[in-house]
């Protein structure tokens, strides 16, 4: 259940309180996020929309521990991440966050298998265990027959599916998707969204997604708009909380 007024319960998977993010450009300060609140329960699929420069990606970066806020707090699965050191935050990302980017960001000199295996190399899993995990992840995205292909040998949609496999292979707490279909044709976008929906529906993953595409956003449980640095409610496809819930 998604809330944006700061009234969510302590049991929320993601809690954001009074989040500010200010950039300094030249001599000018730009307030991108201003007192933003957000509560996301486990298993939610939330889409963030808004015009360019509204701070959607900034919010995603803050939630993923890639950037630090100017003020405010972010707590994920009980971990307050806003005061973590760089090293701790890196470890935290490895454990809790799966990233899916618009441009796929696969390593071109590694095969699909090797790309997906990358997060597991940081774990203590044996080679056989890593292989099993990678095969499972690539199976979930329907690319079991493309494991030894390099990114250049895959279509855009397939590359994005490899990225999804890489994001889920270490079974993270939640997935952050930044325009996951932004570079894909409609058919490939549908395929990718179907996989994301499956991750939420079948595997109960929590997904936070930034998108410009209303059709894609409509497939989320909740849509939140970023306007003037705060989140405002959009529409919902699942039952929401009565007070402060997205309606």
């Amino acid at each position, binding site marked *: 259940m998604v809330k944006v007024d700061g009234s969510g319960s302590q049991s929320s998977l993601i809690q954001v309180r009074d989040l500010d993010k200010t950039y300094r450009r030249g001599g000018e300060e730009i307030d991108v996020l201003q007192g933003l609140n957000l509560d996301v329960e486990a298993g939610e699929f939330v889409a963030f929309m808004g015009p360019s420069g509204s701070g959607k990606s900034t919010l995603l*970066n803050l939630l*993923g521990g*890639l*950037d630090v806020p100017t003020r405010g707090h972010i707590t994920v699965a009980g971990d307050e991440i806003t005061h973590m050191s*760089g*090293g701790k935050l*890196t*470890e935290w*990302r*490895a*454990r809790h966050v799966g*990233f899916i*980017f618009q*441009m796929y*960001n696969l*390593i*071109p*000199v*590694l095969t699909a298998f*090797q790309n997906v295996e*990358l*997060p597991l*190399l*940081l774990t203590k899993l044996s*080679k056989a265990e890593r292989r099993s995990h990678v095969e499972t992840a690539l199976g979930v995205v329907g690319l079991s027959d493309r494991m030894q292909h390099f990114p250049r040998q895959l279509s855009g949609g397939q590359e994005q599916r490899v990225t999804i496999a*890489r994001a889920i292979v270490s079974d993270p707490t939640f997935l952050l998707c930044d325009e996951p279909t932004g570079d894909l044709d409609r058919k490939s976008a549908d395929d990718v969204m179907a996989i994301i929906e499956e991750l939420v529906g079948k595997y109960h993953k929590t997904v936070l997604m930034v998108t410009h595409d209303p059709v894609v956003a409509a497939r989320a449980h909740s849509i939140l708009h970023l306007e003037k640095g705060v989140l405002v409610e959009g529409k919902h496809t699942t039952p929401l909380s009565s007070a402060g819930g997205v309606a």
Partner: protein
Amino acid sequence: MKFARIIFANLLRKKVRLLLTIGSFAVALFLFAFLAVVNDAFQRGSDVAGADRLVIINRTSIINPIPLSYRDKILRIPGVKVITHNNWFGAIYKDEKNFFPQFVIDPENQRQVFPELLVSDDQWNAFVKDRQGAIVGARTAERFGWKIGDRVPLVSTIWGGGNWEFNIDGIYHGKLPQDDETQFWLQWDYFQEHVPAGIKGQVGWYVLRLDTPDDAVRVSKAIDGEFANSPNETRTETESAFAANWVKQFGNIKLLIISIGTVVFLTLLLVTGNTMAISVRERTPELAIFKAIGYSDRAVLFFVLAESLIIALIGGTIGLLLSVGAVPVLAKGLNGLLPALILTPSTLVLGTIFAVLVGLLSGVFPGLTAMHMRVVNALRRV
């Protein structure tokens, strides 16, 4: 190691650039080894010098002789164990290009003063009995194809000129690879018979062995004091100092070699540093992904350093192996001009350290840049 695949995959992504960078390392390390070998050859005299040997020359110059009569006076100085004397013969074998050092020796004491130059008793006894006899170093014998029993004509350029005939009675070998095996020894008595009257009874220099190296300073002072204010004052120094002064005649070889080596080092550093910087810049978004998915800053630094280190080690090894093959060819080509062109294990170790150092230094700045980059900024560059 599980990260090796990532490192090698990155290394191989630009094969031409990789080959060129490895090539530049190979050439630089080859040059490094070559310079080190030449430097060693010039320094070898002082390196192999006996710690218990002193050389006595005329204070004015080594080309001014000293009377043979000094020998007994020197022998009386406490601490002197044994003494021998030599003259530079300076003859030509067939052609001026056929340079090799020839020394007039005192057969009685030569082997006691230079025990590291080995010749069998049979050959030595044959030499001692043969007024026209000669002992030749193994490298010079091999160079001219001389065998024991051969008769060798030399043309003197100093001692009144003319042809001198010698019988090769023996071939000496050095105890160590770096010992000089290019010399040609002829008998003092034969030399005395043929030189002009004014030269008779004059030696080029003395070499003596001490009872103990600790006596070197005291004995040197005693010898030079003994002949002070005489018509032929002496300068006595350790063999090591003598060899070092000899090398100085050619100019400051060490400074020259260090200067060239420094230029090579800096050039290589710039070339490989630039290559690594370009490589890292090209891969900024990829390195950002590594950091985003949980690779630490240190892991990213490790990847970059590992790549530059591998390039350095492969290139360095190729360069050093090439030098292992080339140095003997070079030594042969120089016809004994430098007596001991040897690529020693210490030079190879030093070369490897040099390669590792350049590899690490060239990778450290791009690596630190990658390490400190902000993921958010890097991902925007996609």
